[in-house]
């Protein structure tokens, strides 16, 4: 079956409507009906929170308790897309949105995500492509919130499965066909964040060409706990660099137990890209990724 003819769910339609207009999506559309549960934000006694999938990005960004406990998520929600999009786009829709690849979005070009056997961007123009080449498709994952939620080790509830890790939902990037590992007709209902770490500081940073309203070239979420001048824990995730939001495990390891110093920052930045395998046109994203790691850690340590 033509991949475009698959049935799709519609929340606010901010991703789907453009693909309907262009003809990339041609299958049946089922409108999701928000329920009190999917619209709610429930705080647990342990300090964690469950966010309904129908909550808008703007509502997440505007929630002071999110900014306090999950600063990286709050800033990511405030920084993505445009005010009008954030006002209607939902958490679930953001996680399940499709790739922004300019080949995928062109209805007349076959590609891996549309059922073809090859990725035209790989041999073609992949200026905004990945630097961690993990699968057959070289488009980076589009979801900024997914990168943030990965940093917070979020758990996802769907209408069929409970408490699956966000990394399971996103997959490992090897699939290439889909942008997530949702089953056919499976719907995200809520996302649960464990309580923040004691004394953690977090932020979200992005590298873009223009000042506002642009898909990031590279984006990063960093969470940091320092005690007695040493880094107790660093959690780093990056978007724009791989077919899935990526945890930067080598950079995290380089920080573990290290002194909060310029040297450590430099080590972390260098470690962020050791496993990268950029494409011919994407080498610049290595410098951006290292630069963002440095920028984020300098700010967190300041």
């Amino acid at each position, binding site marked *: 079956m033509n991949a475009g003819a698959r049935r799709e769910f519609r929340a606010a*339609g901010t991703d789907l409507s453009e693909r309907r207009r*262009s003809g990339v999506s041609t299958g049946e559309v089922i409108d999701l009906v928000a329920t009190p549960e999917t619209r709610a934000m429930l705080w647990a006694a342990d300090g964690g929170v469950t966010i309904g999938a129908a909550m808008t990005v703007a509502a997440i960004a505007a929630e002071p308790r999110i900014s306090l406990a999950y600063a990286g998520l709050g800033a990511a929600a405030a920084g993505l897309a445009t005010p*009008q999009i954030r006002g209607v786009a939902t958490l679930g829709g953001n996680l399940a949105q499709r790739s922004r690849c*300019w080949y995928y979005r062109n209805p007349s070009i076959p590609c891996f995500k549309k059922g073809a056997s090859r990725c035209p961007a790989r041999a*073609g123009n992949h200026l905004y492509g990945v630097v961690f080449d993990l699968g057959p498709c070289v488009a980076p994952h589009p979801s900024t919130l997914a990168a943030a939620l990965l940093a917070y080790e979020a758990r996802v509830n769907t209408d069929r499965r409970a408490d699956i890790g966000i990394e399971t939902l996103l997959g490992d990037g090897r699939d290439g066909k889909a942008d997530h590992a949702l089953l056919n007709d499976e719907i995200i209902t809520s996302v649960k964040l464990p309580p923040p770490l004691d004394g953690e500081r977090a932020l979200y940073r992005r*590298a873009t060409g*223009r000042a*506002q309203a642009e898909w990031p070239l590279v984006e990063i979420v960093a969470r940091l706990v320092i005690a007695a001048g040493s880094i107790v824990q660093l959690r780093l995730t990056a978007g724009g660099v791989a077919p899935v939001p990526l945890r930067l495990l080598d950079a995290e390891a380089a920080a573990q137990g290290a002194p909060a110093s310029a040297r450590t920052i430099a080590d972390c930045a260098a470690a962020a890209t050791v496993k990268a395998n950029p494409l011919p046109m994407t080498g610049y994203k290595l410098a951006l990724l290292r630069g963002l790691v440095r920028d984020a850690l300098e700010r967190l340590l300041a």
Partner: protein
Amino acid sequence: MGTVAVNGRLETLPEDAEVLLVDFVRGRLGLTGTKLACGSGVCGACTLLLDGAPVVSCLMPAKAVAGKSIITIEGIGASGLHPVQRAFMAGDALQCGFCTPGFIVEAVAFHDRWRREKGTRAPSTAEIGAALAGHLCRCGAYANILRTVAEACAGRFDGEATTSPRLEARDKVTGAAHYTVDVRHDGQLEGCILRARVAHARIDALDLRPALRLPGVAAAIPLIDKDCTVRYVGQQIAAVAAADRRTAHAALAAIAATFSPLPAAIGPDAARAPGAAIAFGSRGALANASEGPILPVRWRGNLRGPSAAFSFRARRARRWVRAARRAADPYLVEGSFHTAVQQHTALEPHAAVARFDGDRLTLHVSTQAVSHVQSEIAKRLALDQSKIRVVAQHVGGGFGAKGALGSEALVAIKLARAARAPVRVAFDRHEELSVAGYRPGARIDLALLPARDGSLKALSLTAYADTGASVNSTIAGLGRLIYPAKAKYLADFDVVSNLPPAAPFRGPGGPPMAFALEQAIDEAALRLKIDPIVLRQRWDPNPNRQRLYAWAAGREVWRKTAARNGRFCKGVGVAAGYWLYLWQPGAKVELAVRNGRLVVSTAVQDIGTGSRSVLAQALADAFGLDPQEIDVRIGDSALPQGPPSTGSRTTASILPPTLIAAEELKRGIARRVKRPAIGSNAPWRERIAACPDFSVSAVRRDDAPPASRDIRSPLADAGPIGRVFAWMMRRFAHLAVGAGVPSSVQVVEVEVDTLLGHVRVDKVHTGIAVGRLAAPVLAHSQAAGAVIQGIGYALYEGREVDPSTGDILTAGLEDYRIPGIADTPSIEVHFDEAGFDHVLGGGVGVGEVATIPTAAAIANAVRNAIGVRPTEIPIRADRLLALLQGTTQ
């Protein structure tokens, strides 16, 4: 069945889940103030209020608004203008006006929330920029938008007073202004075009019958050239007219076409490679990438050129450069500069609505040239010109891409004829960003050689333009008209390939020429250890620019030195620009008294530059009236023949005959009505009111000779070719080259983030000499907008192509990145109003000259900041990081 309250009226929503809110509001409800421009939620032109919150209606399913309340732009101004609307009007925060309703809706929501929460404290530029980030303005009205929204929030427009320097501003801020895309006749059909998906192929068969069999399809026509060959992805093959867009698309999908693929050459590198496929066998059909006449030039494979007529002692120039290279002359500046393809992407797409009443054709078309389009249609379709009426009341931007008769108009006419019904053809953003024209990209090889005595000895410029399916780019040739040297070799090549054709774009050839040449001047100054402004003062004798150099040297920032402070480096750069002063011989203006009011008529059009206001202001000044008291009739080919709005010729073509006609009208009024009693403070108002109807008209004639020999056309300094070129322009393009050189000098301050490869333009000081300003506030707006477009050219904009298929990948406003409001620097506009006293009215056009030096000045500022010269635009992160890698990191 759901309902929704729209501007307080209950409306029934469509059942169809596919209908988007923008189509419901515009199509079903006829509320056309809401505009559709990008179709992907990027530009915000379709923004309306949903339960008080701004949303983009192009992505919102109509059924999702059931039970809610919508306010469109029409609802916002309904019971008296909102302070934001008054602020936009007074502060001229708009030009073509197509994005304006969206901006107003968003700014109203921001303003109302701000006032509730913060009172009348003015928001910061950053706060407004973040709030309005979901809107794009291609004219670049951002600086005025930022200022006026702040003023509205501060309560400065809470009163009732509404004034505007722009005559039609009220219609544009209320959504009442009708553009071509808004025209809807009874029984009007939607026309759509089938486009090729291959870059080069022979069309073997085309069967339109399956399309015609579909219900709702009224016409299907072939659009194949005589040689049955497709030469680029997106080339038109056929068109259909159907009841609505969706039916039309289904009909296009039903058309059966078979192709035999031919080898293709995609892009300049492939086209120049050994053994490249010949992109164009028959070269006669190639489009014109510029506004100049096409001369016969040599071809080698896909390479057309050199066109080197503007050279001067060419062999000597090349010999001197070779000798200097051999001798390793330290002052010889050599380099290769690369500029990207820049798309016009006016927010109103190319659009036309054709309607026949018997054998009379009325064509609404988004055009820069109603009179020209009328005569071209008569020629192309063998129609009687007197039976063709071309109308363009409001035009949502053009920038050169709408200066000729386009396929959208021809297709609409043919479909209307075939379907026997009115037909609208409106390009979608993909068409607009792929097949609707662009400024060619270029590689420019440059050598500049100062002499031992510090004068300019030789200049060699060779430009290879990426023109796709078109020819006649002139970049290097423009190097003749500035910086006189002892010898110049100036060669232009077109690299033709299987990509869509280029079109003239705001100062065709100027910005890429300046990007190379102005950086070379800057580099020469560094080598000679001379201030770059001082070197220009020495090498560039033009009197207009001499005054601007003195002004630029006086900017305080110019005396500062570059500050490199770790990650962030600040720099300042300067560049000069010029353009030709062009005017339209025979442009005609009619002035009349009708029912006691002054009426001015000419078939010019207002593409956002302000020709309406120029006419009204000139007459208001002449008669001591308020501009709003003048009835201005433009945008209709039935009026006396006006000039196209291209080549910065509009003001200089319509203002002089208007002033002549005004004097004649005064004499006529004086004969008909006695002078009122002494003491009246508006004598002409009373006499006009009392005057019986009559009219006079005047045509544009040659200027008086300038007072000084220094004031001359730059072509006068270009030897015989200059005179030939001027003659040809007048003979074949009906365009006269006047005396005096419209000039600009810009000083730009940037900050470079060396860690993340990002350039931010902090301040732009733009000095412009185009004589006296006919409408000063509007000229200021245009000059500031030109800077914004120049920033886009320098930093963000570039077409990307798939190298194997020839598909345009940057075919949406998400991927083709034009500047946003948050990228707006502080802009200082300085007008030097001397230099054009020989022109009646004292001034000429500003549109092109104002954008030419911007990218070059930014590049020079980046060089100043980081010590490395960016020779390729756009200066994206990947390029800047690569430059920096060679130095500091």
